[in-house]
């Protein structure tokens, strides 16, 4: 798959990454190279193979329903870019 600048723009938007005009071309070329590389997978026959999501055949453990956390708001918000009245502030969210 060869990506065009417009493809990179779309992907960057989906991933919320600001990419400059100059970078677009460079990414289009390096991402295309990588896709070409990973498309070496195409020669493998996986028609009868089940996908593997985890290395180990393990099962989800279930946690007991108990409250064990108490507020650490001050500590957590000390490292926040912008807070007020205990809230994280972001530019206006338009619904």
């Amino acid at each position, binding site marked *: 798959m060869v*990506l065009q600048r417009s*493809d*990179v723009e779309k*992907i*960057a*938007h*989906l*991933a*919320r*990454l*600001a*990419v400059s005009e100059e970078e677009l071309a460079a*990414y289009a070329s*390096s*991402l295309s*190279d*990588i*896709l070409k*590389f*990973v*498309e*070496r*997978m*195409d020669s*493998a026959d*996986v028609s009868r*193979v*089940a*996908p*593997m*999501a*985890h*290395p*180990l055949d*393990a099962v*989800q*453990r279930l*946690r007991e329903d108990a409250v064990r956390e108490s507020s*650490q708001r001050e*500590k*957590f918000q*000390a*490292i*926040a*870019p*912008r807070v007020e009245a205990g809230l*994280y502030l*972001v*530019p*206006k*969210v*338009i619904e």
Partner: protein
Amino acid sequence: MHKQSIASLAQGLRQGDFSSEELTRHFLDRIHRYNGALNCFITVTEEVALADAREADRRLRAGEAHALTGIPLAHKDIFCTDGVRTSCASRMLDNFIAPYDATVIQSFKAAGAVMLGKANMDEFAMGSSNETSYYGPVGNPWDTARVPGGSSGGSAAAVAARLAPAATGTDTGGSIRQPAALCGLTGLKPTYGRVSRYGMIAFASSLDQGGPLALTAQDAALLMNVMAGFDEKDSTSIDQPVPDYCAALDQPLDGLRIGVPREFFGDGLDAAVGELVQAAIGQYQRMGAAIVEISLPNTRYSAPTYYVVAPAECSSNLSRFDGVRYGYRCEDPVDLMDLYKRSRGEGFGAEVKRRIMIGTYALSAGYYDAYYLKAQKLRQLISDDFKKAFVEVDVIMGPTTPTTAFAAGDKLNDPIQMYLSDIYTIAVNLAGLPAISIPCGFSAGLPVGLQIIGGYFKEAQLLHIAHRYQQETDWHARVPEAFET
């Protein structure tokens, strides 16, 4: 003191030859002297280290010491450390003071180990040369114009230059073993699920695993005794008893069956590296092991598979870095979209953005089956290759890397060439197996690593096999000349 193994330092502490504070000051002095040349630490936690050391000395005097009490260590800057900057070598987290300790860090604290500082690495562990760090590249102590490997390059360089007796690292596609090989160290990537991932900033969740970088297998075993274990905070952690990794180190190797995959000795392998690895395998044969030629036919798919799975998971794992609750936030965002795009665009480096975009693409509508699903199926095939092999053999041996340390800048602008430097290590992560890299010689003055891959939860066996080799050879004891004193 800096040339001793942890095993002998621990003995010195116990005998009162020196205090932990003296030992710690010795390593801090070395860091001050040499870090400028190597850039292997992002943060040196001098005050924390001295406080840890004094507490360790108290424990030592009180007879409450653990094997690692008072031993200074460096931690890869991917492990969250409460109250200490945890940057993941990214501008994104340059201002991030972690509000909690990773489980691994907690375990070392409980054991009384001393934290010297946070080691440099590739940004978000994405890289094989430690050149993607926001804090600049790390030099290889054997030749500072060459890369130390990555992503745990700072950890490896620090230990190789004897700026720390041992260090923690993480391994997603080779990030412990490859720098261990390029810096002449012993580096173990444990079985997926053996070491808790809680507090280890995620790159690719189904591949990441923490482990030790040390001078010897015995030291790695000492660290594993602390790091390994079930953690209820990590759903992928496995609840299985942890053996004493030091207990079986000295057993004989009689009857050991070593598989040598022909795919690990094909095109792309540097001839001198190949010869040293074969020589090491020959040494094992002389020590009583049987050599069996095997095949891992899907090896050639491992790098392409990895470069779909890892970026896909990373694209999602790194979405939390959005400039809202912590980390980098761009100046004066005009709206929400601008906040997201510029904070992430400015906070992440080029390689991280590249992988996020590849992963985003591989998961997006219309491409999921062709990339992500296909990669997951190949992952099964690659894993099955190992399962079949382990019916016939106990361990698999081969080179850790195709070449010795390459020159800085060589592959930085060629992602594919960079990705191929992990060609022998990646399959192990895809399968979730444990593997160790140990020094097995030098080519043109640069260390070469032998990789030993084991079955699930066979860390003790790997450490034992590595230890036996280190009893017969002294590659692991060599010190880079510039850092001898």
